[in-house]
């Protein structure tokens, strides 16, 4: 199985989650209040203060075929607003 890590602005969380639902993932996990720095933007706790929101970190464990289904849509969201997506191997305990 695969593990997908998505990190992007909290403000796009709803959009990203409905994108995951469209691809019929079995589940997902969300961590909010995450900060960080990317190639362009810095997301610090005070961007949360200004209502911009911090980042969200979403983890999805799924099969490769689910990844294939969601790939384009996720990439579109990330290329518009920024954020990253990485895949690694994982297997159930």
């Amino acid at each position, binding site marked *: 199985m695969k593990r997908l890590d998505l990190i992007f602005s909290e403000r796009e969380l709803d959009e990203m989650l409905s994108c995951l639902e469209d691809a019929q993932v079995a589940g997902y996990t969300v961590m909010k209040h995450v900060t960080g720095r990317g190639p*362009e933007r810095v997301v610090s706790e005070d961007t949360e*203060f200004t*209502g911009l929101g911090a980042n969200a970190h979403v983890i999805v464990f799924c099969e490769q075929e689910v990844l294939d289904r969601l790939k384009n849509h996720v990439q579109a969201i990330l290329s518009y607003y920024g954020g990253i997506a990485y895949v690694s191997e994982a297997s159930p305990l």
Partner: protein
Amino acid sequence: MDSSLILQNVLTPPVLFFFLGTFAVLVRSDLEIPAPLPKLFSLYLLLAIGFKGGLGLQESGIGGQTFTTVGAAIIMSLLIPIICFIILRLKFDVFNSAAIAAAYGSISAVTFITAESFLENQGIHFDGFMVAALALMESPAIIVGLVLVKLASPKDRTRSKKMRWRTILHESMLNGSVFLLLGSLIIGFLTAAHNPSGVAKMQPFTGKLFYGAECFFLLDMGIVAAQRLPSLKKAGNFLIGFAILIPLFNALVGVLVARILLLGPGNALLFVVLCASASYLAVPAAMRMTVPEAKSSYYISTTLGLTFPFNIIFGIPLYMGLVNAVIPSTT
């Protein structure tokens, strides 16, 4: 006279706590107010400002002066972004210019309440309907900003980034801060009309506690503003100059409009402060969603790191001096 006003302004707890926060960052103290505690204070302040404004609005009535003042405020929040946009286009692309312009057309609630505290300190009267002006100046500025992007943006803007009107209206009217402020205003208005005992029971929370909570919040604003300073350098001299001079310019325009509207000195100062202040809450959030091409560090660093501190330290007493010079004292 102005310098004594500045001193009187600086030696109040809210401004002193703002300095304390700034100082903590400068000397690298590890003082921090962890998220989401600042959110608690900002929600509280918006709720309390709105509620008190609603009571004031009930008191002063929705009569002629309320309408003309609020109307003039809305017009200011439509005009200022256009002027700013033209100036900013000298140096920046459409996206950044529009986003920064929208921020300066909009308002800063904390600058407004600092000005209210200043007036209370000086024993100068002001009216509740000014809060209605505050609440109604965020959305138009956002709309102008987004319309400017829509009109002026290059033809080849990625298809997905083309804004629909629904998005523009949603982002401008339903932003959490604007919504809470307006909602609390209406609740205050209704409560004052129908439930006087409810007003009395809210008073310890929205009234008495307010000044202290303002201090706490300004402590955090001091920390956040000072953390923004380094990224200001990157923004360049043009933007630094803009962040100081445009508030002064807007204040000048504001005081003239206030004179035409025949506002008393208290309301006039608040009107000027609304014109001169810039948003770091609703506008950045709306721009982040709809104009991701604009660099958020530009519009946040200038409004939060420079314009906000300038206004609450020097601006308010300066604008008071201006009001005293231009507005014939009615007392």
